[in-house]
């Protein structure tokens, strides 16, 4: 297999199964950060209004709250089920360990304390540069803690195969050819009809037609027939 073009991160389980994690990059995490910052400041402003009525005791509580939102807000949320701050939740991100397991308290604490390092020299420049440079989008805190920020929902590129009358291929197909036809059929729901037909024409010999077609290439018919071949390949007869 060639090296993948995308940024999938594979973690191997003890059972030898490769989990595929999708690390989240600068843009998604930037949005999440902005949402979290908005929530934190809104909370502080709202509470400071209430606490100012309580004079000095209130300002004591305010200092504690300020400390908690400054340092511990992400840690608290990352340890809840779902392991993500509200901002990350809104963007369908979550924090996991490198192994794909939920983040541990120590790791969460480390990655969020080292925010101070990512923040330097100003405005998260180091953290941002790390995100841009690394294929697994880890900032300094993630590196030290051994954590990843991943997308929870995978974009569904493939659906179930489109329905068609099963049709035997015109010649035996190699395993790779079979996989290609099945993968093509799985994308039938997402591709436009024209593109689907265009791709199907490439495989016209499989359904017993020459690629140039007689009298003229017929994308609709080839599509239907190739979908049939796919059905035949997955075992419908």
């Amino acid at each position: 297999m060639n090296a993948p073009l995308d940024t999938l991160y594979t973690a191997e389980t003890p059972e030898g199964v490769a989990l595929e994690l999708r690390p989240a990059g600068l843009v998604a995490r930037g949005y999440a950060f902005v949402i979290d910052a908005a929530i934190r400041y809104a909370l502080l402003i709202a509470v400071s209004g209430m606490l100012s009525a309580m004079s000095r005791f209130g300002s004591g509580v305010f200092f504690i709250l300020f400390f908690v939102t400054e340092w511990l807000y992400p840690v608290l949320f990352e340890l809840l089920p779902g392991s993500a701050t509200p901002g990350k939740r809104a963007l369908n991100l979550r924090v996991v360990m490198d192994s794909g397991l939920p983040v541990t308290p120590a790791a969460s604490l480390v990655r969020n304390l080292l925010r101070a390092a990512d923040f330097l020299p100003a405005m998260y420049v180091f953290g941002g540069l790390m995100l841009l440079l690394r294929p697994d989008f880890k900032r300094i805190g993630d590196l030290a803690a051994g954590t990843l920020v991943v997308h929870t929902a995978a974009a569904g590129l493939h659906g179930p195969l489109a329905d068609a009358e099963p049709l035997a291929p015109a010649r035996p197909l190699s395993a790779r050819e079979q996989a290609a036809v099945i993968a093509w059929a799985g994308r039938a729901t997402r591709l436009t009809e024209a593109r689907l037909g265009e791709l199907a024409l490439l495989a016209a010999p499989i359904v017993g037609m020459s690629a140039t077609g007689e009298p003229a290439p017929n994308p609709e018919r080839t599509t239907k027939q190739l979908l049939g071949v796919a059905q035949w390949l997955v075992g419908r007869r």
Partner: protein
Amino acid sequence: MTPLQFERDYGPVWDELEAALKGLAAGKRRWFKRQPKEPPAEPAAPPDAARLALLYRSACEHLALARARAYPAHLTARLAALTQRAHELIYRRSDYGAARFARLFLIDFPQAVRAHQGYVLVAGLGFGLPLVLLGIATWFDPGFILTMHDATTVRNYEQMYGPAAHSIGRERGADTDWMMFGFYIRNNIGIAFQCFASGIFLGLGSLFFLAYNGITAGSLAGYLTARGHGETFYSFVITHGAFELTAIVLAGAAGLRLGHALLAPGRRTRRAALELAAAESAVLVYGVVAMLLIAAGIEAFWSSARWVAPAVKFAVGGVCWLLVASYLVWQGRPRTKLEG
């Protein structure tokens, strides 16, 4: 075997695993919410662990087969999602709770401090040397403090610790104690976190913040001593200092550990060394936070109290130093010593 046949044959296994996972997750959520509003409608039988492991392992096998045979993507995607969820639930750590918490402070934290002796020593020197040197320097020449603090700050400090102030450290009303408690938590734990996090820059950040805080505190102490406010000042700092100064040094030591891992990773890759150092020094950080919470409480409610005679404060403070020292040195050692 065709994909359809594969799905037909093993589908029930996947469905059963899915149901079992749902049951597990629901059980977990119920625990998290504490009180279920109504008794759970269908008492989802807690999935048998052995059965679950069996189901999980066969799902893993099926996923490997499906991938090797290039089965349709939606099929492998379903299996991948299923095994991932199972993996998460089966391998998640479940030893949280009071026992783990107690173990942290009874055993793990003091042990981690001893395991990091060298770093603690360096951090202690990095903090203590500037403290003592600047203390002596300002004691001999009080004017020297103006190189560190501006005149207004110095005047404020002098008022706070001078004999005229009716509570030490800050001017106080009754509920000011609470305000200062909050202030100390924010300020001191923030400093400690800074000492730790900046250690990742090869330890230089930790050394800088340790020295900086040492210089600030030392020059202040020397100045106030020279001005004759020594008794007030030392009776103020001695009790919470036992926790606060130790905690700052320990935070610095944890930061130095990070920096050292990057500088001299030994037989690991730099990244592996850093991950190990972070995991081990996180234990120190837990302890540091706890000690600073104690320090903030003492500083706000005890240290500043005027009604306690300085002699009492010195006695209590001395006991606290002994307690902290013996906790870090002796707590959490195995009962019987290993031979050799």
